């Protein structure tokens, strides 16, 4: 009896510990966001009272960020820039991956390493150079400048993930399509693209998140309120006086820009996992 008892209690404790750990992690990860949501619905001095449950439901913060500043415009900017970055990254990444993963040519290895090397420079290191480039191209204070500069983060991992994915696709399928009369473009659009769907979703979503959240370049390369993207706009929300930090509105704005990301990840979560591991293991 005693032995069977310990056998029952040991695993039970282990499982309890496991779930406690999971619960702890969830609290650490989710509580700040939860508190931001709760705060965003408060008004006035209520913000400075500590409430763990929603105490009031005022949408004043939400209406004021749209009324007192061009926040809708900022969201549109962010959305436009992010989508453009995703589109360009995927197109360039896919075509580059096809070349790097499928064709043998001199310097292929070095090219791949160079692509990876680009992503190792810290943002600050490229900031001044990037600024000059953007000024010369006449892209300062315009979405074009942001799109161009974000590509230096998104292209390296897009190219790498897609290259390793394309390399693992069976060559014989491609050859079968060639025998069936498919040209390069048909091959890319009708054979490779459908097979690469999971990898495209993953890399596209990661690129979107990077572009959506970026702050430093967005701050440096834009000047006027209506060219700003959301992260900068949130940081620059000001209160009635210089001694007041408008926490309510900041929280409301944060919630607005975080919800779409969470929704995207939830919708595509299965794809993301299969895409992240797809390059690693064949099959």
């Amino acid at each position, binding site marked *: 009896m005693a032995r069977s008892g310990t056998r029952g209690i040991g695993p039970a404790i282990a499982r309890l510990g496991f779930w406690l750990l999971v619960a702890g992690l969830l609290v650490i990860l989710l509580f700040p966001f939860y508190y931001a949501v709760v705060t965003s619905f408060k008004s006035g001095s209520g913000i400075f009272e500590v409430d763990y449950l929603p105490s009031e439901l005022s949408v004043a913060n939400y209406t004021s960020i749209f009324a007192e500043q061009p926040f809708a415009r900022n969201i549109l900017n962010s959305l436009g820039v992010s989508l453009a970055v995703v589109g360009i990254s995927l197109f360039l990444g896919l075509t580059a991956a096809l070349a790097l993963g499928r064709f043998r040519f001199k310097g292929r290895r070095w090219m791949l390493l160079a692509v990876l090397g680009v992503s190792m420079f810290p943002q600050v290191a490229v900031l001044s150079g990037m600024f000059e480039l953007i000024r010369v191209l006449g892209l300062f204070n315009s979405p074009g400048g942001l799109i161009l500069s974000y590509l230096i983060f998104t292209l390296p991992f897009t190219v790498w993930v897609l290259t390793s994915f394309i390399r693992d696709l069976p060559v*014989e399928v491609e050859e*079968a399509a060639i*025998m069936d*009369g498919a040209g390069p473009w048909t091959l890319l659009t009708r054979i490779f693209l459908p097979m690469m769907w999971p990898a495209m979703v993953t890399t596209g979503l990661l690129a979107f998140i990077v572009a959506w959240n970026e702050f430093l370049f967005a701050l440096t390369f834009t000047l006027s309120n209506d060219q700003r993207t959301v992260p900068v706009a949130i940081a620059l929300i000001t209160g009635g006086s210089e001694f007041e930090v408008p926490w309510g509105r900041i929280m409301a704005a944060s919630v607005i820009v975080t919800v779409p990301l969470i929704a995207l990840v939830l919708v595509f979560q299965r794809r993301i996992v299969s895409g992240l591991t797809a390059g690693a293991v064949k099959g």
Partner: protein
Amino acid sequence: MANVTLRGLRKSFDDTDVIKGVDLEIEDGAFCVLVGPSGCGKSTLLRMIAGLEDITAGELAIGGEVVNDVAPADRGVSMVFQSYALYPHMTVYENMAFGLKLAKTEKDTVEQRVREVAEILQLGDLLDRKPKALSGGQRQRVAIGRAIVRDPRVFLFDEPLSNLDAALRVQMRLEISRLHRRLGTTMIHVTHDQVEAMTLADKIVVLNGGVIEQAGSPRELYDTPANTFVAGFIGSPAMNLLPARIEGGAVVLDDASQPTRIEGIGKSDAGDGPVILGIRPEHFDLVEDGAGGGIGFDVEVVEDLGDTCVLHGVLAGAPQATVRVPAEIALPSRGDRLTVVPGTRRCHLFDRDTGQRM
């Protein structure tokens, strides 16, 4: 339908010559099997015919028309790949229709062709399935169906049976054979399995190191192998190739610790000198101990196959040899000494230096 002609075909990758000048005529409607050990260039040769590999030198003609620079899809050939290479995101129907659609065939014709071929291959009920929902044999049939639908002049098979289990392989082999009879199209089939080659082919081409060792009917290759390579490759278990020499019109085994004189082998009047003696395991006869012309054979391993029994052991004290005997006799066991007589009219003599048939 068309004949296929290879004239001085060569292929090099960088500095490595893979195909070193191949001349071959495959008649219209023939079933030709390219066979050889791995790395002999048989798959490369097939891929050159398909158009997936460039031809370094020489000429390839299909139906009398040189196609060296014709795109794969325009050569009128279709290919079945080793891994089947089905399009994973398309249904069976779409897989088979893909080539026709790319060739801008009318929709009704596509539909009709695909249904027709599906009927032949008993794929009618599977047309809406994706490849991952099919068994190995079904995938194989879809791959063959995709090749047939395009109504090619020549079919190419690249080791299509090697991924199937033994029972299914025998069944698919039969189906391919039936299909060939039904369609009457020229087929070129690559395999490393000599049994597959023997059973399917009208014409076997044995390749080794990028050159043709011998081409001919299965019977020709079995009865009169041109050299020691073909002799050792065709037939299972493999032919015994024993170092020997001709002495005064008879063949004497080298290294034998017992006297061996084998009289009456054709060509053994060629003059004294070293040779290779080839005897197939199934061409030994068991005789009573001490009978004239008998050679001692010490059994080391016995493989009982049911119908016959394969014995591995030592012939005349020295060379390793294999003997195949009918299973009706009282089976010998390990350590037994038997007396065997080679069927002299079925022995082969090869030049020791060149390996060529004498």
